[in-house]
């Protein structure tokens, strides 16, 4: 307590400084008076008595200062003094100040920006949603199947009903449709959500209501929708009487019952949703049929909120025990099926997974940028401390303590860092939406949303970074500066080009740090660029020149009976268009964002292991699919027009599936059982990539669309024409069949392939940009050190010249010193890079983390940049006039 009292008393003293000072003066004066009085009484002359009293008392001002320290909060008082003085010093050398602040702004700003992205995308991704710290993604898995396998609606209810540690479970399944308001039709993304969705999230619609409990169930029983604020404003003109209006969605009249608040975009990282419908409407929005009562149809993505105080481990244990009960009760569907929680930044079914690795690596990169920036500012301060040596010497001579000097230099550093932090946060604010630029929208009308968020947490870390940076960059120069040797202060520093005093050794050390950090970044950039190139050049196994088009029959309300003749006729007509080599249908295009069909499979003659789940993905395609996409058939044949509902059900499998389940035997003519129907294998197709170039080879099979008809299909066309050239012909054929339909604007499959590779592109872009910044900063640092070394050794260089050294010798001397530093830095950097690049794992595509090309690239760039940075000062050194130099 006394400690706190003392602190408080001093704090109060800070505000009563003048009053307390007066009191103190009066008290000391009284003391002196008493002392003088005593001396007079002892028989001294009044004048001599006063002098004697003063002598006895000691140095009045020193005592006052020491006493003051106990009475007012001196350090705070000095801090303001230092701050004011620091500001004056910065203003006096604006060039230095601006350079230092720019470096730090770059360092702090990039860090704050990446932090705000991490905060806004990974940690608290959903604006307005309450308790995101207790919100977890439901990560359903099936033994033996990689990745997320989803939940069925009945399973979802089982977990909800049987758990006790959860506040709520919510369903949120992304889906797309075409939204036509007035005469404008646009693609829109929406969510199929459980009835408790808005209540569980704590999001209150600004108009109308959320969904009622009964609206979650009953097949197509509750056609109601909540629309987003943006949709309300842009598509309905902000109509205040919107509640109760109807809107046709996928052919069904929906009543608008609510408008979500402006900042609420839904709960899917990356996408800003347009509207939400309750789970009862699943069939209307899912192109693959009614699933609310099907335990094996796993389509649900969702989240759960834990009760306060419950840990994730406890919750996982409870979910696991429920899974085991379900496995016992429903062995057919639930064998090996399990549910666990994932933190939001590891959500398995949205962009979170992709962003985590990218943002993690970016964070490391910008941290390096900050370190390099700090080293630069350190260097600048060291150079300046030489100019201020006179000032420091003077202060020490006048009795300032070294601690006081260090404190003052720190305060100046802090001032620099504070200004830079303000600038840095402004940088972060401006770039909060920059990530969206790298993420292409999948279709017109669909809004991509990857906002950074600058909240108190980001601000706090930025302030901490600012203080940490000050410690880093101001420490060494401050200690250096306070060690001015009073007697030797007037001697010039004898730094030579070759040798180097303690100070220049220090600066060389800083450059070493910069060069090695830059080298790590360069190597990382090289690796990412190379894997990006490799990925772009790698063939997915099919022809990406194929053009995609068609019409959204599902949103237009077609049923299977109407869709069948439409597609048959469209295919016939398109095949007649001049220039078209072949055309086919497929439920999903290659590399689609959509989900392939999957179902439990029985394979004739294959003995399944007791724990094995045979749940394989497949796709519904029309005749000529393999020909159109250019996928070679390894054995048997591809689908033909005659593989229709009247013919024997058939399938084509891929090579991985053939090898895994038939192990060397010929699978042609064998049978597999899909949804109670035996399919005969008629062909084996070469492996291709189905969803991304990064996926490992997987078992996959194809079924004829005519034997498994669905309303939603894509038209794939192989032609020499461009998408633009074929557009009007396609529109003509679609509208000849149904004038109310708008054809989907044709595009090449390559575009979709590019979209799917955005993570790698984003990572390469970010690392290249920040790596470039780092390199630039390091080059400035190297240049500064070499310039300084040259300017300090003018006399030595002049002497060498006078003794007969040639211009070439001098150039060589300076450059070789700089290059020695660079090489040392590169060696340290290479060792660090070899350990660090291994962490990039998933972002690298067919590139070893120790790829010699990437390291060679880093080496070449580093040496080139270092050479330039050394050459400029070296040339200045070579131009020294020996006569002038020696006279100095």
């Amino acid at each position, binding site marked *: 307590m*006394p*400690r706190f*009292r*003392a602190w408080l*008393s*001093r704090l109060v003293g800070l505000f009563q400084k003048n009053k307390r000072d007066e*009191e*103190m003066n*009066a*008290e*000391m004066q*009284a*003391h002196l*008076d*008493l*002392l003088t*009085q005593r001396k007079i009484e002892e028989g001294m002359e009044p004048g001599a008595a006063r002098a004697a009293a003063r*002598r*006895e*008392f*000691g*140095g009045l001002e*020193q*005592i006052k200062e*020491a*006493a003051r*320290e*106990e*009475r007012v909060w001196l350090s705070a008082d000095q801090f303001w003094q230092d701050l004011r003085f620091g500001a004056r010093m910065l203003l006096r050398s604006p060039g230095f100040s601006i350079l230092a602040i720019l470096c730090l702004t770059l360092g702090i700003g990039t860090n704050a920006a990446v932090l705000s992205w991490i905060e806004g995308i990974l940690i608290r991704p959903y604006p307005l949603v309450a308790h995101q710290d207790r919100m977890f993604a439901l990560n359903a898995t099936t033994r033996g199947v990689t990745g997320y396998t989803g939940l069925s609606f009945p399973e979802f209810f089982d977990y909800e009903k049987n758990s006790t540690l959860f506040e709520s479970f919510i369903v949120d399944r992304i889906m797309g449709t075409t939204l036509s308001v007035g005469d404008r039709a646009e693609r829109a993304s929406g969510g199929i959500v459980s009835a408790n969705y808005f209540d569980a999230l704590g999001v209150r619609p600004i108009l109308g209501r959320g969904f009622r409990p009964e609206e979650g169930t009953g097949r197509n029983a509750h056609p109601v929708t909540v629309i987003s604020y943006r949709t309300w404003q842009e598509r309905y003109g902000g109509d205040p009487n919107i509640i109760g209006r109807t809107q046709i969605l996928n052919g069904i009249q929906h009543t608008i019952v609510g408008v979500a608040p402006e900042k609420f975009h839904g709960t899917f990282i990356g996408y800003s949703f347009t509207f939400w419908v309750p789970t009862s409407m699943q069939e209307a929005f899912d192109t693959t049929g009614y699933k609310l009562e099907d335990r094996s149809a796993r389509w649900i993505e969702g989240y759960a909120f834990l009760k306060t105080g419950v840990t994730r481990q406890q919750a996982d244990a409870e979910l696991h025990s429920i899974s085991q009960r379900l496995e016992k009760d429903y062995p057919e569907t639930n064998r090996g099926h399990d549910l666990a929680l994932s933190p939001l930044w590891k959500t398995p079914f949205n962009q979170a997974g992709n962003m985590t690795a990218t943002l993690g690596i970016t964070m490391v990169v910008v941290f390096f940028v900050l370190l390099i920036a700090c080293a630069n500012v350190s260097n600048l301060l060291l150079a300046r401390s030489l100019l201020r040596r006179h000032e420091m010497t003077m202060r020490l001579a006048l009795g300032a303590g070294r601690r006081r000097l260090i404190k003052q230099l720190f305060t100046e550093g802090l001032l620099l860092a504070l200004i830079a932090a303000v600038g840095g946060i402004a940088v972060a604010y401006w770039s909060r939406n920059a990530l969206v630029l790298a993420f292409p929208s999948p279709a017109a009308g669909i809004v991509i949303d990857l906002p950074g968020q600058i909240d108190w947490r980001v601000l706090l870390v930025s302030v901490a970074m600012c203080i940490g940076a000050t410690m880093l960059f101001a420490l060494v120069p401050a200690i250096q500066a306070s060690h001015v040797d009073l007697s030797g202060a007037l001697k010039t520093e004898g730094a030579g080009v070759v040798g180097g005093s303690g100070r220049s050794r220090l600066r060389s050390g800083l450059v070493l740090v910069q060069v090695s950090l830059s080298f790590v970044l360069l190597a990382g950039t090289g690796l990412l660029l190379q894997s990006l190139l490799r990925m772009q050049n790698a063939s997915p196994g099919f022809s990406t020149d194929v053009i995609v088009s068609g019409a959204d029959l599902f949103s237009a309300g077609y049923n299977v009976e109407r869709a069948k003749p439409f597609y048959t006729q469209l295919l016939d007509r398109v095949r007649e268009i001049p220039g078209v080599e072949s055309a086919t249908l497929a439920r999903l295009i290659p590399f689609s964002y959509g989900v392939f069909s999957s179902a439990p499979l029985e394979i004739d003659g294959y003995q399944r292991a007791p724990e094995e789940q045979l749940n394989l993905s497949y796709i519904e395609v029309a005749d000529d699919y393999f020909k159109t996409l250019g996928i070679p058939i390894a054995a048997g044949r591809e689908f033909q027009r005659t593989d229709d509902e009247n013919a024997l059900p058939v399938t084509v499998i891929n090579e991985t599936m053939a090898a895994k389940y038939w192990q060397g035997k010929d699978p042609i003519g064998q049978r597999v059982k899909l949804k109670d129907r035996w399919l005969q294998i008629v062909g084996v197709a070469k492996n291709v990539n189905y969803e991304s170039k990064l996926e490992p080879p997987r078992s996959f099979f194809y079924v004829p669309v005519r034997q498994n008809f669905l309303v939603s299909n894509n038209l794939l066309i192989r032609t020499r024409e461009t998408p633009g050239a074929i557009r009007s012909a396609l529109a003509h054929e679609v509208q000849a069949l149904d004038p109310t339909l708008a054809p989907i604007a044709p595009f090449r499959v390559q575009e979709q392939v590019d979209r799917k590779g955005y993570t790698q592109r984003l990572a390469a872009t970010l690392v290249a940009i920040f790596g470039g910044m780092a390199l630039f900063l390091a080059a400035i640092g190297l240049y500064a050190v070499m310039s300084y070394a040259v300017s300090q050794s003018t006399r030595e260089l002049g002497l060498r010249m006078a003794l007969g050294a040639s211009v070439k010798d001098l150039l060589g001397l300076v450059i070789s010193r700089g290059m020695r530093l660079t090489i040392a830095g590169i060696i340290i950097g290479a060792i660090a890079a070899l350990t660090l690049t291994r962490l990039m794992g998933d972002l690298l595509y067919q590139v070893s983390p120790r790829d010699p090309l990437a390291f060679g690239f880093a080496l070449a760039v580093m040496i080139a940049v270092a050479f330039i940075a050394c050459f400029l000062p070296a040339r200045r050194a070579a131009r020294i006039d020996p006569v002038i130099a020696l006279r100095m």
Partner: protein
Amino acid sequence: MGKQKPDLVYGTLDMLILKALQYDPRHGLAVADRIQQMSKEILRVEQGSLYPALYRLEAQGWIKAEWGTSDNNRKARYYTLTAAGRKQLLAEREHWARITKGINLVLAGA
């Protein structure tokens, strides 16, 4: 400035001031006088360190100060020991006794 006199052991000044104020309120000079007198002139307080120490003790709430008049009718600031100060004095005495005992044992050792 009494250079021939032994310096005070570091940190003991606070304790001595508290002791000097144990029975009567005193002003600064009187505190210095009292310490000198009680130590039979062996200890002499450097006046330069007296005031910082007084203010330190005041800030900690061990002593409190009021303006008053001295014997010869001069204005002076008088310091009084507080209840907390009394406790502190006791604690410091015990501590000091232990320390000196220890030191003496060391010095007396063979």
